[in-house]
């Protein structure tokens, strides 16, 4: 949005103040990130020295090898990949199937179902942590990755989002397909899914990010170190340990390397996320 025709000193002062404001913000955003990356690539000794580090001091990947091999971060990393991939796939399939059901004309009790789904979105999942814990305990899912995959396996948000995408597909199309003898599943899989690609991408990316970052369920359900997911392992690496508490020294670069490793998948999908997130948020927040 160019609004030219302002060359007065007032406009220039406005620009200067504005730029200073933005640059200040930018520094607050970027310095922590740069500092983290720089420390992760510093040597053990250099990372413990005081000083303002914005570029690796004594470049080395000691931090990464220590956290990956000696601290065995590969195990939580693999667990996280399993939970994220399986959980996201299941979530996308179930949510889109539920969304498809909810656009059928003449579905009995549709209003009631929609209301029930919306109510589930109003209740914060944190407030249900104790009941959820008990359910998982009674089902003997504590200390298994199933508990993490099953938690949030389907969500009201995704169902309604997929429904909104499906609603934009003309209903006559599915009616004519039905006359031609196509079953519901065929219509769903070969007509609706391809036409709602943007919706699928949104739900997949949303779910991938939140699964990757899933924290509270992992804290609640997993006590076994072997089953730790990345976030829990990171917490015990960064927050719970003192510098000297374990049998060897955990230096700052090791912790920062752990953070960087946890961010790699997110940074890979970041370009796609930016494209779809805004759309998704608005569809989710629209008033019905």
């Amino acid at each position, binding site marked *: 949005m160019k609004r030219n025709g302002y060359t007065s000193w007032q406009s220039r002062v406005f620009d200067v103040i504005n730029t200073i404001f933005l640059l200040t913000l930018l520094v607050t955003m970027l310095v922590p990130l740069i500092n983290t990356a720089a420390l992760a690539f510093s040597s053990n000794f250099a990372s413990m020295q005081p*000083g303002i580090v914005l570029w690796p001091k004594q470049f080395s990947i000691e931090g990464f090898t220590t956290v990956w091999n000696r601290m065995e971060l590969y195990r939580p990393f693999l667990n996280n990949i399993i939970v994220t991939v399986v959980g996201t796939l299941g979530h996308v399939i179930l949510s889109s199937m539920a969304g498809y059901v909810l656009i059928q004309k003449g579905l009995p009790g549709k209003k009631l179902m929609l209301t029930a789904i919306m109510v589930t979105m109003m209740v914060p999942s944190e*407030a249900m*942590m104790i009941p959820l814990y008990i359910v998982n305990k009674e089902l003997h899912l504590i200390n298994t990755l199933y508990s993490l995959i099953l938690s949030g396996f389907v969500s009201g948000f995704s169902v309604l989002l997929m429904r909104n995408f499906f609603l934009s597909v003309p209903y006559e199309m599915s009616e004519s397909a039905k006359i031609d003898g196509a079953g519901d599943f065929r219509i769903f899989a070969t007509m609706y899914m391809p036409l709602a690609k943007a919706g699928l991408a949104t739900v997949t990316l949303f779910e991938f990010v939140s699964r990757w970052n899933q924290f509270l369920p992992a804290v609640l359900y997993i006590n076994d170190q072997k089953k730790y997911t990345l976030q829990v392992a990171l917490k015990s690496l960064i927050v719970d340990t003192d510098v000297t508490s374990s049998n060897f020294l955990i230096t*700052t670069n090791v912790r920062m390397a752990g*953070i960087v490793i946890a961010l790699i998948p997110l940074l890979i999908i970041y370009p796609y996320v930016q494209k779809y997130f805004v759309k998704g948020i608005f569809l989710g927040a629209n008033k019905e």
Partner: protein
Amino acid sequence: MIGDRPFIGFDNYSFVLNDSNFWKVFWNTIFIGGGTLLFQFVMPILLALSLNEVFSTGFKKFTQMAVYIPHLFSWVVVGGMWILLLSPDTGIVNQILMAFGMEKPITFLASQDKAPWVIIFASTWKEMGYTCILYLAAVVGINPSLYEAAKIDGANRWHQVRYVTLPQLVSTMKVVFMLNILSVLRLFDPVFVLRNGANASTVDVIMMYTYQKGIMEFSVAKATAAGFIVVISTLLLTLIVRKVTNYDEG
């Protein structure tokens, strides 16, 4: 948990409501949640308005990208990062402050006064860019002829921001405020990561109380009662805010 469960009326609720610890964490929640709500409401608006006035697309795109990135990070990552950045020995924040002539490093997270502010700051730092994108998307939809009309009436750039862009964003503000108010009472992850023995008394929130009662002490009934109080309060809060902001009327 399975077996004989006698009905005891509202005993668990009255225990929770008479527990002085509960009221302590309640006020902590109001302070941290309210502060986060305020800053996460104001900062994205300022940022979006400011970005909208930038003419260089490269700078604009880059800033937008930079502020958005932390939204993708988990609270463990963000919290862990700030713990290390704020650490009194080698953390960069104290190093910078000392380069500017401060004598003693500040122990941000071990201090009861400062720790809640660290949480408010870190939340804003993390979520600012995400909300900002919502506003920027709304800004694109503003009718350009409004700006032309304002220009003809002699509005300068500040006037255009104040009297054209800002009022056009009100409906987005309502949506954002609604979404944020839902998360005030459920605040958990940032506290769980950033709390420690020294700051617990000012940063523990209601969800932390539930977690400790239910998982640590295993008094499930009391924890669930506290959880249910949160659900009810959130519903009430939502209804009140809906009414006050005329949410349903646009």
